[in-house]
């Protein structure tokens, strides 16, 4: 199989997932109509599909740790962020704000989503068992949403003040970078399932040969993805916080340090 063949054929159009996505679109328009930012929501679903049905998903499913990492980043950072951005600005959580919207919970959810699912046992289970993989996907989306709620909640009052938001994002970035550094330099496999892939699609030769991705190099790229590009996402969010702080006259920057 060539790279081209792989990229054109390895799409797994999972009917359940497509149904969920269609229902989500219908549900979104029924609930909010055009009051929100539907473009963001469509973008979120498109990236969700990219992560779960495209060749990326096929690679993440047992072949490449680095592809898994891209999937992981998309699910925990990009999809929840876009979903939150798509909501109408007036929306608030109906009840029990205090539980899920405490900054510490958000922070632990965001950082935990990275650390927890890269514990060797869990990472392996998610790669080899379909059920665990589904749980992983859902939990990543949820934890990502709880994390982003602190900076991207639809109502400004639900968000952290900008300077506190910067501290929140920077510390999360540091915590994830440390994991990235560990993954990059770990001489042992973090997720042994990726070391000897079951060659379901017959592309292992392409990956190891043509692409030159040995399992060591693969894990290194995975770690680096978490270390560098992921930090850039946080950095972009930090800059957005600064922009919000400098532009919004009603912001209370002083509150942040209290």
């Amino acid at each position, binding site marked *: 199989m060539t790279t081209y063949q792989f990229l054109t054929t390895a799409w797994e159009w999972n009917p359940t997932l497509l149904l969920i996505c269609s229902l989500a679109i219908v549900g979104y328009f029924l609930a909010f109509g055009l009051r929100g930012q539907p473009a963001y929501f469509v973008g979120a679903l498109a990236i969700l599909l990219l992560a779960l049905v495209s060749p990326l998903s096929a690679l993440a499913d047992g072949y490449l740790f680095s592809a898994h990492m891209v999937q992981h980043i998309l699910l925990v950072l990009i999809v929840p962020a876009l979903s939150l951005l798509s909501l109408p600005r007036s929306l608030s959580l109906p009840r029990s704000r205090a539980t899920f919207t405490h900054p510490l919970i958000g922070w632990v959810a965001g950082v935990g989503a990275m650390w927890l699912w890269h514990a060797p046992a869990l990472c392996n289970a998610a790669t080899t068992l379909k059920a665990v993989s589904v749980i992983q996907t859902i939990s990543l989306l949820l934890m990502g949403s709880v994390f982003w709620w602190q900076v991207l909640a639809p109502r400004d009052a639900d968000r952290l003040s900008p300077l506190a938001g910067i501290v929140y994002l920077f510390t999360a970035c540091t915590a994830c970078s440390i994991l990235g550094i560990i993954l990059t330099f770990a001489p042992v496999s973090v997720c042994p399932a990726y070391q000897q892939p079951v060659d379901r699609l017959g592309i292992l030769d392409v990956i190891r040969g043509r692409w030159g991705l040995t399992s060591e*190099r693969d894990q290194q790229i995975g770690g680096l993805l978490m270390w560098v590009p992921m930090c850039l996402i946080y*950095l972009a969010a930090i800059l957005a916080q600064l922009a919000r702080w400098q532009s919004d006259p009603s912001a209370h920057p002083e509150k942040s340090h209290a």
Partner: protein
Amino acid sequence: MNGTTTTAMFRAAILDPAKRAHYRLAWLSTVDHKRIAVLYLLTALFFFVVAGVEALFMRLQLALPNNHFLHPDTFNQLFTMHGTTMIFLVVMPVVFGFVNYVLPLQIGARDMAFPRLNAFGFWCVPFGGILLHFSVLAGGAPAVGWFAYAPLSETPYSSNLGVDYWAIAIFVLGIGSISLAVNIIATVISCRAPGMTMRRLPLFTWINFVNAFIIIFVLPVLNAGLAMLLIDRLLEGHFFLPARGGSAVLWQHIFWAFGHPEVYILVLPAFGMVSEMIPVFSRKPIFGYQFVAASSVAIAVLSLGVWGHHMFTVGMGRPLDLFFAISSLLIAIPTGVKVLNWSATMIGGRLRLQVPMLFCIAFLIQFLCAGITGISHAVVPLDWQTKNSYYLVAHFHFVAVGAIVFAVLGALQYWFPKMSGRFLSERLGRWTFWLMVIGFNMTFIIQHFLGLLGMPRRVFTYPDLPHFTWMNMLSTIGVFFMAAAALILVWNLVVSFFKGKLATDNPWNAWTLEWATTSPPPHENFHALPPIRSRRPLWDIANPDRPDPIVGENSSAITVPDKNKVGMLTFILSEAGFFMTLVLAYLFFYVHPQPGPTPKELDVPRTLIFSVCLFASSFTFWRSEIAMSKRQRVSMLGWLAFTVVLGGIFLVGQGTEYWKLFKTGVDVSTNLFATTFFTLTGFHGLHVLLGLVALLIFLWLAWRGDFASGRESAFESAGYYWHFVDVVWVFVLLTVYILPLLR
């Protein structure tokens, strides 16, 4: 405020020799931020001359091919001392001096948040400088470069005491830098004047505030590395010795994880200086304040993750090279944004080409060149070819001299009137400027070509190859121009201090608060502050009919958190960086077990029991705080004493574990596990011990009744530290004791 009379009064008080007689000793014991700043600047000037002479000797040696003016060893010592001195004893102190002087004035504060800590931070500099130079008398200066690459810096290859003195000196200087950074952050957050909201901070203050965060994150990383190096050298540890299982590359990672952000620690304050001067001498507000402010944050964050580009030649593998190349290229964007902002500020302005502005313009041009050669180093194959050549030497001198020193010289001309009440001579300043620009470019432009022709750096001499001789000679001649510039500068400082033209309060018609007080300012800085509603309060006063738009809400109410807590939390952040490095180093070696003792020999259940005591002590401290807030003295003392006892039990537990290991012949030098184990748990134990000392002091103070009337914040701050020590133990326990059980 009647500027002229108050100026005259203070000039009479400060410049009259009889009245300042008592100041002589006062300068040694001062905690006034302005005097400490002057001490920083004078120390930096002294070491600038020292390191400059070292550079002159090196260039003399290199003026001719096959020269034997200097012994090769001497040459190695000279370039090590030159680099170390210039970075840690010249640029950092000079930057800290300006920050110390200007930052509290710009935010309308009376002093730094912690004046005594400020004095401590300064005295670390001469102490560190003396330690470093004492090595010359103690068997020879270090000869391993300012980066001290292992294993050259290890005992088998550098057996005299030079490297030990070097490491301890840098360690001390690092502690001084961290203490100042903690002080800067606490000052900016907690000591601002009414109306000075965070959004109204002048750029110099904002940039140095951001910079202080880089300092507290990365200096501890270096200090952790230095501690490991010293453990290797003095206690026969194994961290960086490949022959004994250690990793020389780990030293490079640790050093450059500090070393690259260090470049930004040095250059960001320079950015702050030119961001103040260019608007004033262009008679325009800065173009795009938000972009300059935000790009500083972007630079700070990015700088933490690009150190790998110093290690392309190590052979880290293609993935690492690729990612570091990309992140290094990205850092050019926020830097380029700044250059555009400064240029745009000048466009359409009424430029006043006085000496500070001349230096700013030179800074812009030289820094642009430095940036372009910098980007070229992010291109991996090019970097492989040029890394160890004079091309790199030229690049970083363009940053260090062309950008930083030029900005500092401009800033000196700019703020000297505020510090002394007198202008520096404009005529002598122009001589310094032109000699500096000519000498600098003569010395360093040609070095780019020398490097591309293949002349390696760190060599004491070179063969008579085509072009090498005249290029090196030209480079050496340039140094004499710079030396002349430096001499004129010193002459200018001395003459102008006594006989310079008198300066008014606001001699440059600038707009930030330091110009709202007298020149020099009184001890308490301000008698009265102008209203602060924008980023240019003095402009608003001078132009009441067209003031700057109000930034943020139109109120002078600001809420500032307690400075003790801010200071302690900042300090804890830096400590977290220190322990993070130690934990990562532990993990790095943990995955490759060496022969000899392993984590399996540790008594986990026993340690768990002692750990419970430590964790319980956090709880008892919390109870003590509650009792204090309820003014229940006996209960508070009881819980506090209980905390001390629990902490003591933990230390005894740790001590007996050490004792058992020692008895079975396991010590720091046994193998890598032992080295990393004792280092990590030992440093934690040391922190517990210090926490206990602090708690005992608090116990004594509480016993005397010092907290009867409140002052919770000091007590709570100590509590933060104590809880932090416990949290560190959670991580140590997990990595050292629990992790092996999972395997």
